[in-house]
């Protein structure tokens, strides 16, 4: 099918693909930031058991967690303008990139909501009562006592979500976005060096994922400093082993599922 394999193309394409990395990162960063906000809003009715809103957030969660991201991209890109037309809003001129960011933000928002709910739930209720008993109000108890601990608990999950999001952005090319995967498609088709292009592409994704993994690991250690000191050296080693296992799971998770759908 393609041209014979030539390793030198791998390096050449690495250089050619790198400029499009900023589009990929733009999608990742903005969708994670918006997603965190969305996640908070969606998690609140669940945390405080607000009757009707809770139903809404459950529907939201089931939709975004129960349908493939690719379908969501299509639905938002092709479906949303149709719906908006009904209320006389023309979004035909809005760049596809915005739709992509919106979809990824809402998609990761669902996972963020679950992450926040679990992490806040993991901080024991007794500390909140203690905060009340020293005279703090609900907001102070949440921001001073619950949030710092919940954040530390959530870091490993958050790291997985960011990395999964990074790899999911490779589907944005299906809407014609020239991010890394999109660019590699063009390069591959034009030069017919398919394997080399995909190798360079994989290298970039891997290096960034790996860097993020390390970064979050450092952050987690910093945030969990109040628990680290008790562990003896042996225990600390076990903790490290546990972490790597978790990160391996993180890598395996996308490989098994969503990317294959493309």
């Amino acid at each position, binding site marked *: 099918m393609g041209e014979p394999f030539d390793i030198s193309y791998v390096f050449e394409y690495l250089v050619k693909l790198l400029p499009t990395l900023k589009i990929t990162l733009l999608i990742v960063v903005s969708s994670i930031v918006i997603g965190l906000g969305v996640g908070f809003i969606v998690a609140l009715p669940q945390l405080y058991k607000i009757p009707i809103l809770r139903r809404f957030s459950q529907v939201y969660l089931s939709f975004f967690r129960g349908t493939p991201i690719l379908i969501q991209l299509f639905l938002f890109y092709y479906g949303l303008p149709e719906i908006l037309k009904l209320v006389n809003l023309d979004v035909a001129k809005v760049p596809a990139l915005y739709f992509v960011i919106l979809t990824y933000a809402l998609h990761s928002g669902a996972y963020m909501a679950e992450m926040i709910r679990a992490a806040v739930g993991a901080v024991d209720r007794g500390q909140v*009562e203690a905060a009340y*008993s020293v005279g703090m*109000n609900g907001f102070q108890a949440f921001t001073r006592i619950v949030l710092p601990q919940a954040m530390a608990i959530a870091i490993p999950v958050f790291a997985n979500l960011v990395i999964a999001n990074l790899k999911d952005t490779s589907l944005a090319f299906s809407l014609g976005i020239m991010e890394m995967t999109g660019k590699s498609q063009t390069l591959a088709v034009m030069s017919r060096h398919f394997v080399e292009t995909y190798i360079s592409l994989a290298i970039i994704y891997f290096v960034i994922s790996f860097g993020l993994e390390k970064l979050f690991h450092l952050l987690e250690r910093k945030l969990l400093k109040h628990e680290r000191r008790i562990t003896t050296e042996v225990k600390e080693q076990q903790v490290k082993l546990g972490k790597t296992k978790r990160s391996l799971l993180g890598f395996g998770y996308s490989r098994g599922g969503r990317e294959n759908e493309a």
Partner: protein
Amino acid sequence: MIKLTQIKKSFGRNEVLKGIDLTVKKGEVVAILGPSGSGKTTLLRCINYLEKPSDGQITIDEFTVNYKRPDKKDIHTLRQKSAMVFQQYNLFKHKTALENVMEGLLIVKKLPKEKAREMSVELLDKVGLGNKLDAYPSELSGGQQQRVGIARALALNPEVILFDEPTSALDPELVGEVLGVIRKIAKEGITMIIVTHEMSFAQDVANHVVFMDGGVIVEEGKPSEIFNNPKEERTKQFFKRITPDGVYSI
């Protein structure tokens, strides 16, 4: 002075407190005794509104809250006038011993950092933890954690400190150090309400003993009266069970 009037609390259909009246004089140490499920802890938690009473009224130091319809400000004031020491210590796990004690002073009392620090160091010294200022709760033993909890309560200079079974979660070996600290601060004239299973401690420290069962106060009075000469049949039964003259009857 603290005055509780007709405090009632139900969990669903189960009425846990059936109208409790209790008066605690300033500087008095009150011990609440009774079997499990008698509502002791619930009563204590109702005082600072960690548990929402269904009915009743509380007056702490001229400040009255009607539990039927308290507004947020009332609850806030109530909590500032009281402090609590928990069975499970409930220290803020991400803060050091010193920060745990300072937290209320900085955030609630809005003291400047230097002043808060100075007061907290002094209090931790008082509970015998002057050398553990920078230790996190996970690095402290149960007894040490509970003493930090007591320092945290003392820091707020409350009208009353509520102790919810402060030694129940501790190793027998560590109970002594915590009771020692409580005994020490009792002598300083701080009003305290203590829910406890430590009978000899209650007898020794309390000025007033309350015996509860089935959501009501069965009997109250001076420790000597309640322990040595209870009037009610239920109280006699209870003390007979737990102090069987050296032999445990099964």
